[in-house]
């Protein structure tokens, strides 16, 4: 459309900015807009088109970044009072890659504070609403990005996924959410939550878009020693047949899943079979410990990572104190929200003397067991199919009190992060309440080609229409 000049990049960008102006108030998907940056990039792209240069695939495409991805010169807060006013002096590697390709950044999106949450309600800017029903949660922690993409207020967004924070909001909002293999996308410039779990990935309206973006952003990065980049490109493999693809269905993932979500997942099985996939059920009891393993390890890592916030070098500082110790403690207590403080305290507990072996070391050992359990499963099947979330998006304010009840939303997603695997959530129907249901496909490490091709084939088999709410956003 841009190269054929049906629409100029500037016109396209203005359409998105106008749509955001009309619709973002109800959704609160964006917490910061960057119209000047967006239009300046769009003008540059239009000049290049006029000069006859061909565009690269993501050039001139209006997009968004979760507000924990560093953007030089643009405030980056992780939706926390602790970082309000913080303006990074460098770009995250993923943003630098996209910026160099003239991605049009529309703004930064809402999230749970420091990526800790599954509803986007733990944001200092207020929660994001679900485009299908704004009184319901968008999911989290990348809720703003998912809401923006599903309502077509951006073509795509980048989020981060530590325990499901790309896949879960994508499932709730009816978009595609892809978490790559740990280590294939650089974390440099991603504000750290749990460094052995965090991974950046795309939220999109189609699997093809997710594959395209992954191919662009997955490069080895000398600034992130855990980043090896991808092994092969995914896009060339999209469209291959999946006859004989072995898809395993672990029984434990369907425990406590209500009937309407089960029905939506069961309906997908007929489609997989019609495409020639071979389905089998199996037991995977080790994943039942996934949630407590994850919360012990992620909170331990978070308590260490968030130790850097002391009010000295950046971020919020308490206005009154009597000594340095008081300055640091008051700054952290006033700057962090309730859920962040709870997780820091749990992390401190499991790392403290007398408890380290029983909790942290044991959880690390069990992490090894979960990885082996997945390795064993992948000896027998190519991919695993599960619900992304046991429920559809629920009303805001439901999970106020009990932190552990809140964590149950992540039960299907966290084992993937424990094992560093790639996984994608794609819409697969609706629940009884009319809200989207997400299907999660999980692959072995570095199996992005097989994983995303399977998701792509499913998407095409079920119509191939972009996943977005009709009548919202730009809707070209």
């Amino acid at each position, binding site marked *: 459309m841009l190269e054929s000049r049906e629409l100029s990049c500037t016109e396209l960008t203005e359409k998105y900015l106008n749509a955001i102006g009309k619709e973002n108030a109800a959704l609160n998907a964006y917490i910061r807009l960057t119209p000047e940056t967006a239009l300046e990039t769009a003008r540059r792209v239009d000049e290049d088109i006029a000069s006859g240069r061909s565009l690269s695939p993501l050039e001139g495409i209006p997009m968004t970044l979760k507000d924990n991805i560093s953007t030089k010169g643009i405030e980056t807060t992780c939706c926390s009072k602790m970082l309000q*006013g913080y*303006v990074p*002096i460098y770009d995250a590697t993923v943003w630098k890659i996209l910026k160099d390709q003239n991605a049009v950044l529309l703004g930064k999106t809402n999230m749970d504070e420091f990526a800790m949450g599954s509803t986007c309600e733990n944001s200092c800017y207020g929660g994001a609403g679900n485009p299908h029903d704004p009184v319901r949660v968008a999911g989290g922690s990348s809720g703003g990005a998912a809401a923006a993409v599903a309502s077509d207020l951006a073509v795509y967004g980048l989020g981060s996924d530590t325990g499901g924070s790309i896949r879960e909001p994508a499932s709730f909002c009816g978009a595609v959410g892809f978490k790559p293999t740990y*280590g294939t996308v650089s974390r440099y410039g991603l504000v750290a939550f749990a460094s*052995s779990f965090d991974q950046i990935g795309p939220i999109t309206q189609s699997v093809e878009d997710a594959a395209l973006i992954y191919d662009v952003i997955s490069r080895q990065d000398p600034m992130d*020693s*855990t980043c*090896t980049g991808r092994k092969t490109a995914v896009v060339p493999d999209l469209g291959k047949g999946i006859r004989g693809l072995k898809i395993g269905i672990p029984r434990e993932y369907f425990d406590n899943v209500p009937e309407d979500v089960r029905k939506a997942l069961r309906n997908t099985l007929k489609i997989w079979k019609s495409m020639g996939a071979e389905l089998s059920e199996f037991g995977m009891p*080790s994943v039942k*410990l996934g*949630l*407590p*393993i994850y*919360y*012990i390890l992620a909170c331990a890592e978070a*308590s260490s990572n968030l130790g850097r916030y*002391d*009010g*000295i*070098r*950046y*971020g919020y*500082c308490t*206005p*009154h104190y009597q*000594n*340095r*110790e008081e*300055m*640091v*403690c008051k700054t*952290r*207590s006033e700057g*962090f929200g309730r859920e962040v*403080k*709870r997780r*820091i*305290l*749990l*992390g*401190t*507990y*499991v790392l*403290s003397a007398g408890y380290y072996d029983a*909790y942290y070391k*044991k*959880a*690390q*050992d*069990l*992490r*090894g*067991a979960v*990885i082996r359990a997945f390795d064993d499963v992948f000896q027998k099947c190519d991919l695993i199919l599960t619900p992304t979330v046991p429920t559809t998006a629920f009303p805001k304010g439901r999970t106020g009190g*009990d*932190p*552990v009840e809140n*964590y149950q939303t992540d039960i299907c997603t966290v084992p993937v992060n424990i094992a*560093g695997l790639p996984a994608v959530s794609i819409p697969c129907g609706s629940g009884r309440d009319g809200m989207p249901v997400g299907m999660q496909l999980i692959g072995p*490490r570095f199996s992005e080609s097989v994983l995303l091709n399977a998701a792509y084939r499913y998407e095409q088999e079920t119509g191939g229409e972009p996943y977005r709410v009709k009548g919202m956003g730009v809707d070209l």
Partner: protein
Amino acid sequence: MVSKQEIARLAKLAKLYVKPEELDGLTEDLNRMIRFADAVATSPEKGSAFGGFDGRENIFREDVPHPSFRRDDILKNAGSAEDGFFLVRHRR
């Protein structure tokens, strides 16, 4: 069960203040979370040490100096700075 005194000790370790009116609620929350984590502590499964996903260790780059950030850029986000240093006042 973790006591309020233990929560106060953890808060001190984590450099957090807990107001007296917050302590009861926080103690209850942390106890719920610790009971949840007990499933790991009490699991009979042994597992085996997790040594990273791909077995790589001690990943270093070549010992060749690269340009770093400028001092005045690094100080841009500081609350207070003086003569090219972060300034931390004893009291405010």
